C-alpha cells in the first residue's frame, strides 16, 4: 500500500485483478440476473482497460481529464481560515474541475470506458445534478447519447443543473416515486438498465452499487488524493495530519482518502449530513439525516451490502439533507469497511452548520461551495482543534447550483454569518 501511495499509482501487478468486490463484510453484487452478464462484462473491461491500461485507455483518460477537465486542480492554502483556526488549512479545489465538481473524474472515466466497450447509450442517475451534469458533459464530449434520471424534488432544488444537462444534449427524466430524491433515481436507472442492458452503460455517480462500481469509481476519483498527496508535500513539506471530505455516497471522500489510506498517521474524516436530527422515525419511515456511516446498520441496497438507513424490518427509510447530493440512505461499501476497521472516522454536521459553512467559506475565502462541500467546512469550524497542524479539505464542488436553495434555507433560520437576506425574498427568479 505504501509503495502505491508513494508513486500515486498502483505498483505493477498489485491491482491486476478486479478482485471479488468485497470490502470485508461489505460490497458484492446484489442485482437482478438480467444485469449479471453486463456486470461481468464491465468487471472484465475494468480489469483490462483501467487496471491494465489495455489499448492505452488510462493514458487517454488522463489526457482527456487534463485537457477537457482541467486537471490537476490546485491545492490552495486557505490563508484566512488558517489564521482563524490557527492551523494550516489546504483546499483541494475540485470545484475548479470542469463542470464545477469532482464528479467529472468518474463520469469521464466511465463514459470513455463505455465507448471502449462498444456501448451505444449512456444512462445515469443524479441527486444534486452534479453527476448528471458531469455525465452529460462527458457524453457530449465523447459523442454518446445520454439519459439522466432525477428525482422530482431534486429537479426543483437544482434547476440550474437540469438546464445544464439539457443544453449538453441529455434527456432528463423526472422520477416521481417515493420522496423523489437520489434513492428513487438510482432504483429507476437500474430499471432502465435491466431493460436496455445490451447496448447501454449505467454510469453510477458514486462509490456505490454492485461490484465493480465501488472500486472503479474510487479509482477514477483517486486522482484527487494522488495529486493532493504530492501537492501537500510540496506546499507544506509534509503529509497532512488529517484529510476531511463530505460523504454522500462517498466518491469524493474515497477519492480524497485513497492514496492516504496507507499513511497511518493521516486521520481521515468523512463528514455526513446530520440533517435536522440523528434520530430515525420508524413510524414515518424517515431519517431526518443522511448519516448512514454514523447511524446506519448493515443491509443490502442497490446492488451492495453496506451501511444503510433502514427500519427494524429492513425497509429503507427516506433520508434528508439540505444538500441533495448527500441525501441518500446508503453509502459506499469500502467506506463502510474502512469505518469498521477504524481507519476512517465518520462524523456529521447538521443542516444549520452546513449553511453557516456555506456563508463562511464564501465570505472568508471567496469560494462559494456546494452545500454538500459546505458540510466539510461546518466540521472544520466545529472541530478544527482536533484536526492537527495540517489539514487538507476537499472542496468537492462549487455552489452556483445551490444559490436558490441557499437563499431559501438561509431565510428559514437564524444564520449568524449570513448577509442581509431581505432583498432576496422571492428567490433569484
Amino acid at each position: 500500500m505504501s509503495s502505491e501511495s508513494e508513486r500515486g499509482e498502483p505498483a505493477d501487478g498489485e491491482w491486476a485483478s478486479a478482485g471479488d468486490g468485497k470490502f470485508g463484510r461489505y460490497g458484492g453484487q446484489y442485482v437482478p440476473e438480467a444485469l449479471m452478464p453486463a456486470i461481468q462484462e464491465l468487471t472484465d473491461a475494468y480489469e483490462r482497460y483501467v487496471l491494465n491500461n489495455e489499448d492505452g485507455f488510462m493514458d487517454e483518460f488522463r489526457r482527456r481529464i487534463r485537457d477537457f477537465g482541467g486537471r490537476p486542480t490546485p491545492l490552495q492554502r486557505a490563508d484566512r481560515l488558517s489564521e482563524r483556526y490557527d492551523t494550516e488549512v489546504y483546499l483541494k479545489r475540485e470545484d475548479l474541475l470542469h463542470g464545477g465538481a469532482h464528479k467529472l473524474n468518474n463520469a469521464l472515466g466511465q463514459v470513455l470506458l463505455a465507448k471502449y466497450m462498444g456501448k451505444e447509450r449512456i444512462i445515469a442517475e443524479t441527486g444534486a445534478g452534479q453527476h448528471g451534469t458531469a455525465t452529460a458533459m462527458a457524453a457530449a464530449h465523447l459523442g454518446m447519447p445520454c439519459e439522466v434520471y432525477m428525482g422530482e424534488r431534486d429537479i426543483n432544488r437544482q434547476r440550474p443543473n437540469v438546464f445544464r444537462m439539457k443544453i449538453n444534449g441529455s434527456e432528463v427524466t423526472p422520477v416521481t416515486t417515493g420522496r423523489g430524491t437520489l434513492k428513487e433515481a438510482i432504483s429507476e436507472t437500474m430499471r432502465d438498465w435491466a431493460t436496455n442492458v445490451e447496448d447501454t452503460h449505467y454510469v453510477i455517480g458514486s462509490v456505490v452499487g454492485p461490484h465493480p462500481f465501488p472500486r472503479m469509481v474510487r479509482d477514477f476519483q483517486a486522482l484527487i488524493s494522488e495529486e493532493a498527496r504530492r501537492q501537500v508535500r510540496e506546499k507544506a513539506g509534509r503529509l497532512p495530519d488529517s484529510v476531511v471530505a463530505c460523504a454522500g455516497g462517498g466518491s469524493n471522500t474515497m477519492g480524497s482518502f485513497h492514496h492516504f489510506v496507507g499513511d497511518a498517521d493521516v486521520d481521515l474524516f468523512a463528514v455526513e449530513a446530520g440533517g435536522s436530527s440523528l434520530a430515525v422515525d420508524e413510524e414515518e419511515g424517515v431519517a431526518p439525516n443522511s448519516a448512514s456511516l454514523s447511524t446506519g446498520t448493515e443491509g443490502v441496497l442497490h446492488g451492495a451490502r453496506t451501511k444503510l438507513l433502514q427500519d427494524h424490518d429492513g425497509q429503507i427509510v427516506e433520508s434528508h439533507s439540505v444538500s441533495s447530493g448527500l441525501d441518500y440512505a446508503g453509502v459506499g461499501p469500502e467506506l463502510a469497511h474502512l469505518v469498521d476497521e477504524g481507519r476512517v472516522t465518520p462524523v456529521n454536521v447538521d443542516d444549520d452548520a452546513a449553511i453557516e459553512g456555506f456563508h463562511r467559506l464564501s465570505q472568508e475565502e471567496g469560494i462559494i461551495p456546494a452545500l454538500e462541500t459546505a458540510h466539510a467546512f461546518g466540521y472544520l469550524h466545529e472541530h478544527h482543534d482536533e484536526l492537527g497542524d495540517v489539514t487538507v479539505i476537499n472542496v468537492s464542488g462549487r455552489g452556483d447550483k445551490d444559490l436558490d436553495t441557499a437563499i431559501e434555507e438561509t431565510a428559514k433560520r437564524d444564520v449568524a454569518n449570513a448577509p442581509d437576506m431581505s432583498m432576496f425574498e422571492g428567490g433569484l427568479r
Partner: protein
Amino acid sequence: MSDAVDDEGDDADDPAVDDSVADAFADGPAFVPYLAVGDPDYESSLAYVEALERGGADVIELGLPFSEPIAEGPTIQNAVVRALEAGMTPERFFEFVEDLDVDVPLVCMTYYNLIYQFGSEQGPRPFVERAASVGISGFVVPDLPAEEAGPLREACDEFGLHLISIVAPTTDDDRLGTLVDVSSGYLYVQARLGVTGASSSVSDRTGESLARLSGVDLPKAVGFGISSDEQAATVVEAGADGIIVGSALVDIVADGHERGESTESVADRLETKARELKRGALDGYGRRPPAPEGTSD
C-alpha cells in the same frame, strides 16, 4: 432440485424437501399467479389470493413488499407502495400466510434485505425458519443472483424449502450452470429483458430461452409480460411447463381499488381472469407437437 440438498441427506433430522411444488408441475402446465400481499389492505388481499386458487392456480407467488423493488415495473411498484402504506411488514406477511385458506404451494417473492434483517440475528436463517413454520414452500429473490445465494440456499436446505432462480434472456450457458446449481423447485424464465409489467406481445426470446433450457431437469415457468390467455397458450406451446402472471392481476386489484369496487367483485374478476389464463395454458399444451423437442418458431 439441487445436489446440495442431498449431500447431507442421511441426517435423520433433515426435514423432508417440499414435494408440493414438483407435484404442481406434474400433470400439465402450471398456472402461477403473483399478488403483492397486503394490496390494497390485509383483508381484501386474503380474499384476492383465495380467488386465484378458485380460478385454478397451481402455485401462488406472494409478494412481500420491499421499499426499493428494483426489478418491478410501475404496476407492481404501486402495489407495493399501497401495501406498505396499509401496514404490511414481514411479520404481518407470515400472519397472512397463516390466515390464508388455500391448498396450493406458496412461494414468497421478496428482496434480500428483508430476508437478511429478519429476526434477532442477521442472515437469512431466521426468515427461512419462520417461512417454513407458516408453510411457505420456497423463495424467489430478484436481487439475489446465484453468486450471492449461498447463505440463503443453505438455510433453504436446512428447512426443506426451494430457492427458485430467475433465468434472464441475457443469461449465458456459463451462468446457467451456476444458476441451476443453486436452484430447486422450478426455474423462473424471464420472457424478456426489463422489469415486471404486462405487455401486448410475448417476446421471441422466450422460445430461445426455453430451447436453451431443454436439458435442465427442473420445471420452467415463464413470466414477465404475460397478460392474456393467448399469450399463455403461446408460451406453453413453446415448451414452458408453467406461466407466471403478476402485473395483469395486480392491474385488476389497482383498478378495483381506484374505482372503489367491493372486495367480492374484484375477487370475482381475479377468479375469472385466472380461469382465462389457466385455460390459455391448457390450450397451449394441447397445441404442442407430440415430440418432446417442442420449440416453436
